């Protein structure tokens, strides 16, 4: 069996580029493209130094609006972005980013008067401090700035019995329409641009070509002579992606009319996805309280808190993934004992943007009922926050000398996020209040252990009192759990939109 065609990748955005000024040096590499809503496409020259692709620091400074200065005494480079510092040291492939050390694939390099930094500087050092979503896509040589929507689209064409099938994988899932316009199909995505690797065709009698459409964010499918009608369907894929399948069909042999019903938008995907301009929200960690030997509270009917929290956490994960296309991680996905530090560590190690700990409350008073929302607080943490404000420590650096960096102890990570946590807690409280009974003291700051180490906005939700017989039944009921999930999804959306809007 021979392979008639070998698929090759076609990168749409680069094809559309045309005439990007490349670096003049012989070691210049293909340029990158910076995409943003405000400035459109901007080329960014790259060059290869010592086997590493690098950007000139002054190019980055111009594009991302930061300043940098050479410290002639310490021999380092200080980049200042929105009041935060990135410190680079020649000869060292480590940068201090707002006080945290990150590794780079190579040290900064100097040619003449120009400083160069590895391409990964953008994702590892700049992205955490630039204050707006910033994504580096090395394979497609793209840098996405400011929550611009550029889904990745990759596909293949396969002949099938009596027709052909075009399969496109879209990540993240993006609303789109498929319509027939003359002898072609046009797929329009609700996106600013596409990061597409489109296939060559293997069934030219049905599909002659799959190519970028004229307008941004569209794909055109040129139809072959045997085309008569098409069917399209979309199904959710892994990690917030989506698969679009378009079947191109021939005319039915006996009595098919010449003109098929134009553009029967067959089973269009339901408008499930919430596509407000995405803020910085990428990963949410959900913490089902207790588990394993730690049963938590127990209801009069024998229901355990650990069972309820896991059930709701699983539902919430599915709902957030389906509606927001974010990555969702559970701190436990079974009945195992997980330490309180481990739970925060799961969130920190996955660079979560939000941490939600789910619990059911207990009271010595069986009549006590209603949901409550907590964020970290109390005098003890306010004091710690004040202390941490200006705390800098001199640490020895490789090659001798010391450098002042900001040190946040692990067990105090949450202190930096108290304000956002309080804001998110209010959103959760408001959303819950619309759907489930609330306790009289529904929102509070408390010194809760699981929140202390979380290095991102974090709340603890007490969904109801399991010691109240009626609430125990509610907590195990599908309908009630679904209300809680809906409320939490709504508050995560509010939080995301707020963050997206708050960081222009």
């Amino acid at each position: 069996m021979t392979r008639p065609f070998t698929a090759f990748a076609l990168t749409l955005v680069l094809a559309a580029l045309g005439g990007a000024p490349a670096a003049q040096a012989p070691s210049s590499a293909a340029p990158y493209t910076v995409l943003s809503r405000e400035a459109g496409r901007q080329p960014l020259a790259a060059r290869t130094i010592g086997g590493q692709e690098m950007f000139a620091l002054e190019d980055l400074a111009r594009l991302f609006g930061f300043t940098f200065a050479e410290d002639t005494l310490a021999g380092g480079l200080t980049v200042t972005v929105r009041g935060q510092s990135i410190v680079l040291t020649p000869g060292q492939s480590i940068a201090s980013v707002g006080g945290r050390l990150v590794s780079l694939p190579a040290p900064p390099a100097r040619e003449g008067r120009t400083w160069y930094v590895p391409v990964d500087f953008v994702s590892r050092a700049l992205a955490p401090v630039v204050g707006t979503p910033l994504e580096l896509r090395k394979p497609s040589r793209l840098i996405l700035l400011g929550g611009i929507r550029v889904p990745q689209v990759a596909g293949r064409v396969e002949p099938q019995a009596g027709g052909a099938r075009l399969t496109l994988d879209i990540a993240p899932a993006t609303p789109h329409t498929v319509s027939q316009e003359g002898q072609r199909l046009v797929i329009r995505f609700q996106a600013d641009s596409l990061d597409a690797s489109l296939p060559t065709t293997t069934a030219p009698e049905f599909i002659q070509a799959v190519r970028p459409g004229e307008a941004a964010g569209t794909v055109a499918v040129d139809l072959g002579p045997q085309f008569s009608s098409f069917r399209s369907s979309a199904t959710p894929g892994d990690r917030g992606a989506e698969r679009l399948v378009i079947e191109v069909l021939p005319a039915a042999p006996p009595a098919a009319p010449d003109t098929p019903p134009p553009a029967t938008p067959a089973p269009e995907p339901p408008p499930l996805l919430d596509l407000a301009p995405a803020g910085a929200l990428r990963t949410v960690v959900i913490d089902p309280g207790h588990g394993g030997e730690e049963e938590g509270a127990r209801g009069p009917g024998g229901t355990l808190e650990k069972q309820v929290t896991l059930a709701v956490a699983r539902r919430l994960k599915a709902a957030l993934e389906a509606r927001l296309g974010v990555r969702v991680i559970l701190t436990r996905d079974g009945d195992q004992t997980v330490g309180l530090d481990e739970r925060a560590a799961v969130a920190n190690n996955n660079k979560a943007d939000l941490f939600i700990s789910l619990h059911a409350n207990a009271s010595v008073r069986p009549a006590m009922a209603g949901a409550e929302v907590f964020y970290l607080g109390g005098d003890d943490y306010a004091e710690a926050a004040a202390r941490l404000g200006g705390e800098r420590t001199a640490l020895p650096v490789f090659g001798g000398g010391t450098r002042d960096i900001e040190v946040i102890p692990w067990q105090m990570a949450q202190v930096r996020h108290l304000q956002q946590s309080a804001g998110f807690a209010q959103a959760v409280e408001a959303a819950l209040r619309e759907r489930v009974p609330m306790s009289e003291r529904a929102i509070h700051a408390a010194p809760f252990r699981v929140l202390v180490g979380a290095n991102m906005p974090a709340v603890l939700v007490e969904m109801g009192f399991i010691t109240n017989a009626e609430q125990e039944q509610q907590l195990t009921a599908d309908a009630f759990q679904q209300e809680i999930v809906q409320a939490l999804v709504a508050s995560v959306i509010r939080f995301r939109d707020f963050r997206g809007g708050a960081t222009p």
Partner: protein
Amino acid sequence: MSRRTALAILVIVVVSAAIWAMLVALPQRVAPDEAGPSTPGAGPATAERRITATLYFISEDGLSLVGVPREVVFGEPIVLQARRIVEAQLGPAPAPLAAAIPDGTTLRALFISERGDAFVDLSGEARANHRGGALDELFTVYAIVNALTVNLPSIARVQILVEGEEVDTLAGHVDLRNPLHQSLTWTGESRN
């Protein structure tokens, strides 16, 4: 007549003296020295002396802690007084309030550091018998923290230990790794 008058005056004087002694003089000698428990106590009377301290129990509606003035055995020095207060706090709640500390919990030891941090070492029942639930755990912790810091101003912070060791939490919620300041957030109206 004059003898009878003299006798009557004598009786009146004696009765007045007795009434004065009962109502004014004696109570002053026997009453506990509430204002200054640090003044040296009168040796033999110490065992019976009492102070009034505010202890904390769970309200009828379960929504808050309630501060209740209770008589507590006088203790000297301050660390002994702190023990007496915690022991009273571990005791039964006055109806209709409920105890904030799990049943069977006893005080193993209590120390006060030079910085005014009190370390309260509770028996294992404090964890084993806890019903769970974030709110009741807050009540357990702050009943003890507030009972000490409100009644003994020289105690600034309180750390709860269990069976002689530092613990993360009692029931999975409240961070006990560091001494805690007083917090009246969880305390409702005081009842007298």
